[in-house]
């Protein structure tokens, strides 16, 4: 059985973890950084993902995609309010958002797949083995379409997704494992783009989710937005610059807002400086100012907490421990609101950025058959039902039902000889169809018989991933009927297959981009090192040699901006050749110095 990794595919950052001798570990890059920004940039030479793409955000915002998780499993109407903030152009096809970047069109699962591939590559490099199986986390409050989209993303990235697991429950696994906790715990998970609250009972290795609730459109991004709005307005007043018309400046201001917010979790005051074409925008912010801007958003998390408590049949004081997850819980305001609600100090010993990925690795270990002690019993976050007469939803599976679960419903005909019945599947808590989420439609085939005689039983099964499966059976003949479900906001199987094929093409482009980035990094390192060497050794070499070295490093400085890694490599080789003598001279000098200092020290003895 090959290794299964755990992936936290976040709105702002993503992480990958594995099980190392019974303990989950997050995989770092060579510099020791574990978080990969969930940002994808399209350059002329292909894709860049993570930190390089974040740098790309202010240079080429219209070709840099961030917060793609907000679009997963959604239609354009779902995100209409925030459209104005995104620098790239969006449209909708077959109920699925499409992102237009540099003349190409991508679906959100395709973009997420690019991030997943980067994580996969990192793990493969670190573990020195192929990775093909993963557990991926999603917000607990994700609906069926959003979960399916995440699964699609995994497939496009060449990963078999063995399980979609809820982020707060994943966190509880990592937390419970370490703390050996028993009792009732609440996981408060406020990330970059989503909020979840889950209440669990931990007993003898069983992690039973009692209730979950949340908001898939509330997170740290929204906090940044509040700050950004203030900056944009002030810049317009003070500098007469309309930031909305400059996507690159908009992203620079947005990043400045994010950094200021992060700093104010530790400090009480900070100054924001943004370079504008006609001067500098400076603003001093206090923690109180930021808190007053976001307090309404933070308070919006409290109603889902109360709803979850009610569904679990518990009072706030019956919660034994409260655990904080997600970067946004670093904010002191969030902590104090949570503490007030539950009447106890929340735990935050585990790194709130990493705990979800760690939990995913624990779940991967369970699925791999290596851990038989722990079992997670999760729930479906939303009620599932079908449309009935008068546009009313009839619930078949209630929210917070433990999964897997199934419900059967019998269908018949209203007219003699009727050969089909249309069925519309919904998810949500409201009474009317129009207020709930349309998941899918399908047509049930009926034998041509007098009205009311046919009896076809449909089974709606929600699996352990929280994903719906529909099967049908004719009761009279006991014959199974194949059901072709058409998702309202999802990709068809054919589309996913096409995207898997496309991803191979992207892979080639990726390799080229990676080579350019690596060559560029090396070139810059050599330039810096040579400059340093020149200043140290200027007295040791001739002016002519010095001028020649300066010429080649200047030349390399120009070539490294290009997009052909072979040209950059050639430039590096030339610098290496020209500095060969310089290196020798320096080496001698250093040796001499070392010898002399040794003599001195011996003399002192």
């Amino acid at each position, binding site marked *: 059985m090959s290794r299964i990794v755990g992936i936290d595919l976040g709105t702002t950052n993503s992480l990958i973890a594995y099980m190392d001798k019974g303990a989950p570990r997050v995989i770092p890059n060579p510099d020791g950084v574990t978080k990969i920004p969930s940002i994808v940039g399209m350059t002329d030479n292909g894709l860049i993902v993570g930190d390089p793409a974040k740098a790309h955000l202010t240079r080429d915002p219209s070709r840099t995609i961030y917060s793609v998780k907000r679009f997963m499993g959604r239609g354009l109407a779902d995100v209409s309010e925030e459209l104005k903030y995104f620098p790239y152009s969006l449209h909708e096809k077959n109920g699925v958002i499409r992102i237009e970047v540099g003349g190409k069109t991508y679906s959100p699962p395709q973009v997420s797949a690019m991030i997943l591939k980067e994580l996969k590559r990192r793990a493969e490099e670190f573990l020195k083995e192929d990775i093909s199986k993963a557990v991926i986390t999603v917000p607990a409050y994700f609906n069926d379409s959003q979960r399916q989209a995440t699964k699609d993303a995994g497939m496009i990235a060449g990963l078999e997704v063995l399980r979609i697991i809820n982020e707060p429950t994943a966190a509880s696994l990592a937390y419970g494992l370490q703390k050996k906790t028993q009792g009732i715990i609440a996981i408060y998970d406020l990330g970059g783009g989503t909020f979840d609250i889950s209440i669990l009972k931990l007993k*003898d290795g069983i992690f039973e989710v009692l209730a979950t609730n949340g908001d898939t459109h509330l997170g740290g991004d929204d906090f940044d937005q509040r700050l950004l709005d203030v900056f944009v307005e002030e810049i317009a007043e003070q500098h007469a610059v309309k930031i909305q018309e400059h996507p690159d400046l908009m992203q620079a201001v947005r990043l400045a807002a994010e950094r200021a917010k992060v700093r104010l979790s530790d400090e009480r005051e900070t100054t924001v400086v943004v370079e504008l074409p006609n001067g500098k925008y400076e603003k001093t912010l206090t923690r109180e100012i930021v808190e007053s801007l976001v307090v309404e958003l933070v308070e919006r998390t409290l109603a889902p907490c109360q709803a979850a408590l009610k569904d679990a049949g518990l009072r706030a004081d019956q919660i034994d421990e409260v655990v904080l997850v997600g970067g946004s819980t670093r904010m002191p305001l969030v902590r104090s609101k949570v503490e007030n609600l539950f009447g106890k100090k929340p735990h935050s010993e585990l790194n709130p950025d990493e705990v979800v990925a760690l939990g995913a690795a624990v779940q991967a270990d*369970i699925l791999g058959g290596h851990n038989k002690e722990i079992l997670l019993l999760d729930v479906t976050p939303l009620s599932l039902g079908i449309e009935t007469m008068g546009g009313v939803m009839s619930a078949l599976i209630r929210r917070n039902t*433990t999964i*897997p*679960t199934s419900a059967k419903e019998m269908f018949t005909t209203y007219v003699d000889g009727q050969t089909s019945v249309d069925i519309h599947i919904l998810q949500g808590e409201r009474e009317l169809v129009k207020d709930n989420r349309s998941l899918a439609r399908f047509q049930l085939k009926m034998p041509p018989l007098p009205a009311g005689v046919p009896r076809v039983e449909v089974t709606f099964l929600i*699996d352990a991933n929280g994903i719906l499966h529909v099967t049908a059976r004719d009761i009279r003949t006991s014959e199974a009927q194949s059901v072709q479900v058409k998702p309202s906001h999802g990709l068809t199987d054919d589309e996913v297959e096409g995207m898997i094929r496309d991803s191979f093409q992207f892979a080639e482009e990726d390799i080229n981009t990676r080579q350019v980035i690596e060559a560029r990094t090396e070139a810059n390192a050599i330039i810096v090192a040579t400059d340093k060497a020149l200043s140290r050794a200027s007295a040791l070499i001739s002016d002519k040699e010095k001028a020649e070295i300066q010429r080649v490093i200047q030349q390399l400085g120009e070539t490294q901006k290009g997009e052909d890694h072979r040209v950059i490599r050639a430039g590096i080789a030339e610098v290496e050749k020209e500095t060969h003598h310089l290196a020798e001279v320096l080496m001698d000098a250093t040796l001499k110095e070392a010898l002399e200092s040794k003599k001195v020290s011996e003399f002192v003895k």
Partner: protein
Amino acid sequence: MARSMCWHCQSEVTGEYLCGQCVKVQPLSKELDYFACFKLGRLLNIDAQELERTYYELSRTFHPDFYSTKDESEKTISLGNSAFLNSAYRTLKDPIQRVEYLIRLEAGAVKDIRSNPPADLFEEILELQEDMETFRGLSSEKDSTERAELRQKLQRERGHLEERQEEMEKALLTKYHEWDQLQNQHADPSKAREQKDLVLRSMQEILSNRTYICNMANELLETTG
């Protein structure tokens, strides 16, 4: 429990849920009811701790997490068994759902939803409905004192209905004991059946009154906000 052949190795299944020969998980019998799934008789008083313990134990036997590396047939069986187990636990855990399920098993009766109020509450409910009508008719800006007074009255009524609901649930619990006693007696089968049917009918009566009251209380809550 009568057992069939293993779907995989065709040997007789001697173990309870797993084949003794090839240790493959077996699909739960189609005839198995929720009580039998938990190795319980059809009794209404259930020890919640014990129920949870059995649920956890059976979850460890059936949950798909433990079949991730197995073949497709075993995965499908584990999924089906697990879904059945979860429905069984949810139903038996809740005293109201439990008795509704028992009535369905024993009497084959579908839940009857009554459209008329219980006889002893007839006049009270009638007045309540009129008051709700009036309340809805009053616009929220004008007639503020009249509206506030009416709201208070309706809220008092809701409290009253909730008290009634609690009384009904208490009455139901006494019936649970009656039922369990009859189940545990080894009396003349035909006579026992008669008595049991009587208890089932009276429980059903209480249940449908309770449902009516619950719906009414919810409607009141929605109206007054």
